[in-house]
């Protein structure tokens, strides 16, 4: 009676029925509405064409090659961003003066759309993977830096006092009180950065690259091979979902093994 609508659970028959109906209508519209004429400027590929491009006869060799390049860039860039972000975050978190001095710049740089750095990275590192790795590193650095820094700066004063009262040294406090508390903030930064890494890699490839998802998306668009274009987009949805769950599982795995928090 008083269950607020926003919180009600909805695994009801009506819910499932609605989902099935809506999905069926969408799929049917996808099959019927598009003209199916390739090269028609407003064209959307028909459902069966898209499914065919996703099926065994699709260009999986191309898709996978592109995906490997893009994911490679995303992963290596993320690694750079993660290491640099955590190291800088800890340094800045520990020193109040440094933090005060650098923080406004970190905030300002975060307000700069990272994608805008792409042309510069191309000038610096060329059309290959390196420029995209650099771009991903720059894009993923800030979320991790900011949340790590906040984590260090906001370590529970009571815990530090407790540890000091038991005679812990500064190094011990750092190792046993501050660092374990950083796992949660680092993961929440990582959650944003993983999404950003994939996004930045593709954006970099859209601007200039010789391989990767961004490249084949543009090639398929130019050649009006929209069935393949849509197939790649659907694959990207799947990869995006997989990456998000990977982070969730990793977070769960690590947090389960933490003594507290």
């Amino acid at each position, binding site marked *: *009676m*008083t269950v*607020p*609508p*926003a*919180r*009600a659970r*909805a*695994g*009801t028959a009506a*819910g*499932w029925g*609605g*989902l099935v109906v*809506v999905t069926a209508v969408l799929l049917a519209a996808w099959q019927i509405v598009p003209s199916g004429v390739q090269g028609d*400027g407003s064209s959307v590929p028909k459902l069966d064409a898209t499914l065919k491009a996703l099926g065994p006869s699709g260009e999986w060799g191309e898709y996978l090659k592109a995906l490997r390049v893009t994911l490679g860039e995303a992963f290596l860039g993320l690694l750079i961003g993660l290491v640099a972000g955590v190291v800088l975050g800890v340094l800045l978190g520990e020193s109040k*003066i*440094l933090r*005060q*001095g*650098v*923080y*406004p*710049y970190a*905030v*300002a*740089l975060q*307000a*700069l*759309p990272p*994608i*805008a*750095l*792409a*042309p*510069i990275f191309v*000038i*610096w590192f060329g059309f290959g993977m390196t420029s995209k790795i650099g771009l991903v590193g720059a894009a993923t650095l800030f979320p991790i830096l900011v949340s790590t820094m906040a984590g260090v700066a906001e370590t529970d004063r009571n815990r530090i006092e407790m540890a000091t009262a038991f005679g812990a040294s500064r190094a011990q406090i750092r190792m046993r009180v501050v660092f374990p508390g950083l796992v949660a903030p680092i993961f929440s930064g990582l959650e944003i950065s993983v*999404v950003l890494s*994939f*996004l930045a890699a*593709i*954006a970099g490839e*859209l*601007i200039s690259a010789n391989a990767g*998802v961004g490249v084949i*998306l*543009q090639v*398929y*668009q130019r050649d009006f091979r*929209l069935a393949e*274009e849509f197939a*790649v*987009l659907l694959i*990207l*949805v799947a990869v*995006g*979902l997989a*990456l*998000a769950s990977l982070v969730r599982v990793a977070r769960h795995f690590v947090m389960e093994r933490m003594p507290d928090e």
Partner: protein
Amino acid sequence: MNRATAERVEPRGPALSRGTWRAGLPARAAFLLLPPVAVGLAGVLLIQLVISRFEISGVVIPKPTDVFAVMRSDIFLEQVGQSTWETWKATLIGFALGAGTGVLLGLLMAESRIVRFVLYPYVVAFQSLPKIALAPVCALWLGFGLTMKFSFAAMLAFFPAVVATLAALAAVPETRLEMAAAFHASRRQRLLRISLPSAVPGIVSGLEISMAFALIGAIVGEFVAPSAGGLGQLLLSYSESINVAAEFSVLVVLMLLGVAQNKILFGVLRAGTERFFESSR
């Protein structure tokens, strides 16, 4: 019984740390401004010295003095003024469209569990698509002009607004809704007088993300669409002529635009709404 809500009852001194600091305003401002200004000056000076000392090419990193020189030139100012307005126009239109429909959909999903249940899988799927990948298709469908730019910006602005609205409405304190129910409030009254005002701070901080994404969308749209103009095209054209100092200048302008809209505009909005509606989180 609400044991968990008990802790919020005693009044907290608002911003005790700030209130206890009795220094005058000029002294306080100086203390806050000194470290960043010092770090900024030292950084610029260091970069300038290192570049001169090791004779690093201007293609790698332009000297800060070169960047300042570009930013003071009349041609640059004219170009950048025009381009900034083009980019921001697309950002604003895209934000209004995307965030507006996003908040409405979030409301609809929060209020109707059927709608929420049916749309949820689609929202999740779309959210995990790196939407930048849609830029080429958008250009194909919508051409290479303003329409494509603001549509793309709108698409990027849309999802953060949906998610934030849903989350903010789900986080409305149960006790407030129960209180309203006890006073015989209708469903509409509960939405308009309890849920929506309670959710305003959450929605506003979602809109801040929407606005940042709208700017990214506009820039990416300009990268992909050759006739779209704006700061994105300006960056690309400087990049083609390997004018790195000018590229850095554009980046500085873009950063200032980002700070102005994401931090200053929304900073004020957020502080205001949080003060008035008091975030429940």
